């Protein structure tokens, strides 16, 4: 513990200790030091040498799943309004320091991230303290920001065939659950949001016990802890509002066909996976990560090789795992080439996954996928932002950082039988939702 601190610190750990099989090449110079302040705020300092760049990230355990009924888009709107403080212009003040701020909202969490140079961290943290002190929001500011958000929605959903496809897919994949409601919100709900809604959300959700401050850069943990204690450490402790915790129901097999004015037909499939906030789910999620890699990482992966390169029925194909606290998902997304039918593309994807389930894996196929996932992690740790993002997202899911990190290495132990078993369920379409988009001539 830092001598001036009233909080508690755990021993520093090297990245190589936390991720012994993924971060070995980083040696022991990159260290993670966790601590907690009396108001409940967690701090993670990721100390590195070399670049003078620093990433300051505040990971808040509150997201769109916590929106009250009929208030879709509220968490995202609050994220925008955090840049419209009545007393400080956060962007302007941060940019005066050469820092660049951004933020994003997800179903389970909201992240405020600022990249800066060493030497300005204290002043940035003071700005963060001011804006996290729950200011009285100005109705005119909210009105203007809602217009911005409606433009954002037009741009990313209404004006984009892929955006509309994805929105339809998640609605069907998580019926009657907040995960099925767009993070951006639906237009009518967005228009109805008030400053009172935002204040109420801020009060219950943006409290210190829900916040993790991650600082990655060439900084001493004791100094970071002192700076955070003198700024965000002054936020009054407050009881957090309860979060939405009901698990999503498992969807039945669903097929929806859309016809939209678009250039490329497309298909998306969503397969439910276990919740990410439980350690007992980690094996299933690691298996899904490995399967996703086998199917779509690079030109030698099964779906890319077969459907994109050889048969030329797909323009692209991507398989990914979205980890979510209450229920994760495996997503398969592909766009068709030329006049290929999206139904044919769907069938070919499922046939290839079926082959993977029934035939032995190629000799080095699993090992290749393990190497690819390992190197991806090594790459993500290159930047201050990447290190902060990885450690922050693990800490958000797991109080015990060591155990959380251990789950990240789980894919190294997954067996071929586990991969094939998941592939079998996918190929059978157990609970899998599918949306096809037929491109209509303009």
């Amino acid at each position, binding site marked *: 513990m830092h001598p001036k601190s009233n909080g508690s610190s755990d021993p520093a750990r090297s990245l190589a200790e936390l991720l012994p099989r993924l971060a070995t090449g*980083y040696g022991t110079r990159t260290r993670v030091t966790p601590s907690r302040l009396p108001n409940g705020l967690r701090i993670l300092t990721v100390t590195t040498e*070399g670049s003078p760049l620093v990433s300051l990230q505040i990971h808040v355990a509150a997201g769109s799943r916590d929106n009250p009924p009929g208030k879709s888009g509220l968490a995202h709107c609050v994220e925008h309004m955090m840049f419209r403080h009545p007393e400080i212009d956060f962007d302007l003040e941060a940019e005066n320091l050469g820092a*660049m701020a951004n933020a994003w909202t997800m179903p389970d969490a909201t992240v405020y991230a600022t990249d800066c140079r060493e030497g300005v961290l204290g002043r940035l943290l003071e700005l963060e303290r001011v804006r996290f002190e729950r200011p009285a929001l100005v109705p005119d500011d909210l009105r203007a920001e809602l217009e911005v958000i409606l433009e954002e929605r*037009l741009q990313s959903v209404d004006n984009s*065939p892929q955006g509309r496809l994805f929105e339809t897919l998640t609605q069907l994949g998580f019926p009657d659950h907040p995960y099925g409601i767009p993070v951006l919100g639906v237009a009518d709900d967005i228009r109805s949001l008030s400053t009172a809604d935002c204040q109420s959300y801020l009060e219950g959700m943006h409290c210190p016990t829900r916040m993790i401050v991650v600082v990655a850069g060439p900084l001493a943990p004791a100094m970071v802890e002192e700076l955070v204690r003198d700024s965000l450490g002054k936020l009054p402790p407050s009881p957090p509002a309860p979060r939405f915790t009901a698990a999503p129901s498992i969807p039945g097999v669903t097929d929806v066909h859309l016809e939209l004015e678009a250039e490329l037909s497309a298909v998306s499939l969503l397969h439910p996976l276990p919740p990410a906030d439980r350690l007992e789910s980690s094996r299933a999620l690691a298996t899904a990560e490995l399967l996703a890699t086998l199917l779509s990482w690079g030109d030698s992966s099964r779906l890319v090789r077969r459907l994109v390169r050889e048969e030329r029925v797909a323009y692209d194909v991507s398989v990914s795992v979205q980890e979510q606290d209450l229920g994760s998902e495996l997503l398969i997304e592909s766009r068709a080439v030329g006049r290929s039918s999206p139904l044919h593309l769907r069938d070919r994807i499922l046939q290839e996954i079926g082959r993977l389930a029934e035939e032995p894996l190629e000799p080095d196929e699993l090992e290749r996928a393990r190497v690819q996932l390992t190197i991806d992690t090594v790459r993500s*740790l290159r930047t201050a932002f990447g290190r902060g993002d990885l450690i922050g997202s693990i800490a958000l899911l797991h109080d015990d950082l060591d155990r959380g990190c251990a789950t990240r290495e789980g894919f190294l132990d997954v067996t071929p039988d586990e991969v094939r078993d998941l592939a079998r369920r996918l190929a059978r379409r157990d609970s899998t939702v599918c949306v096809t988009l037929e491109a209509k001539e303009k």
Partner: protein
Amino acid sequence: MMDRRLSSVLFATLAASFCSWRGLASGDPKWSLPRTTEVFMSNELKALLVTKEDAPLVTVILRIRQGSLSDPEGQEGLTELGARLLARGTSSKDASAIALAAERMGASIEANSNHEHVEISIDLLWNDLRAGLELLSELVRDSEFPEVELESVRTQMKAELRAVQEEPDAVAIRRFRSVLYGGTGYGRPVLGSEASLDALTRDRVAAHTRSLLDPSRAFLVVAGPLREHETPFEYSKSALGLVNASFQGWRSSSPAPELRHSPPRPGPMVVLVDRPDLTQIDVVVGYAGLSRLDPERIPLRMASLILGGTSSSRLFHALRSEQGLSYDLSSSCSYRTHGGEVQIRGATRPGTAARLVEGILAEVDRLTTEAPSREEVDRARSIYETELLALTETGDDLADLVADIEELGLPAALLEEAHATLLATGKEKIVEIARKVLTPEHRVIVLVGPTAELDKEFEKWGKIVKE
């Protein structure tokens, strides 16, 4: 301060004995590039080895100083198609074997082009450097351009052209460039068109690409944790030894294809691309900009930052924060060897498109007539300093930077010089450069969306072209 172009570089058959080691700048180490070794091999291939110890990864970039500006009329897409085919088959490996060779190391080969260069790169663990270099060497020396792979890549590129049509902002940018350069030079898309791609034969692509692949027109950048592995006693295992072993046999000599550069055309013009299916109108207000070699590029970038380059910029404040007109609103500069562009971009509902353009032009006018405040200049300077530092944060960032410096003949002390210019640029210079570049004579406005009824509203800003 040391200028790379004045430094001594030696020709060598066995490079280990003849390399030149040096630091590249003398001032604040923050603005210096790390130690770099330059070597010419006997085949005239130049190699630049840069030490960066941030991660156990090495980035290798092989760049050819010739890009799609050399595509003949009617054969647009030729260079890009050839570049992509480089990783699709040699005399001993088919496309799958090449992909497997890279991907079992957790790496993938990127092979593509822009208007000015062809690039093949790979990013992999230090321990795999030998295999990575040998693979890249095989691709540039022994590519076979198989017919079946040509069809696969052609299909991909045609689908990509369609996919771009689903992104109205990308359509607007393409149209802006096409109009600005009169459909020639930088105005021609690197990807070509469906018709030009269909016209390309395997033999034509192979001949053109082979003519580009000349070691005397190429250079190689290797960036990663090289220092700890560079010992005089283990030359064969050093990065330099590996580069030499892999590339010394690369031979070719052919005349360089003709470049088809053309200067920007005069404006002002307004291009209305009617897309009634869209619910928003994407707007580009663009100008002919400056070359990467132009010393005024830094003041211009500062002007762009003040105008719309950050979240506290004038455009962001006036049109997004105050009026809620657009979510994504920005201004940016592109620099090329023979020119460049300034682009101001936004998207808004059909009913507010004229208001958005009016607001953008009012802020442009203000920047050219009214000096920015001291606070604005300081802020732009501060942001720019952080951007400069980010250029060397990782080994792959550094490899890109060194490759750009080499390709364009920029000084090795680029960061130091840029930083000095940044400190010396005041508000008068910013107004001066804004007045010089942001002129209606070189302005093209493009709108993509439901624009059928907009010509009357927009004719005051230039000659209308409806599409």
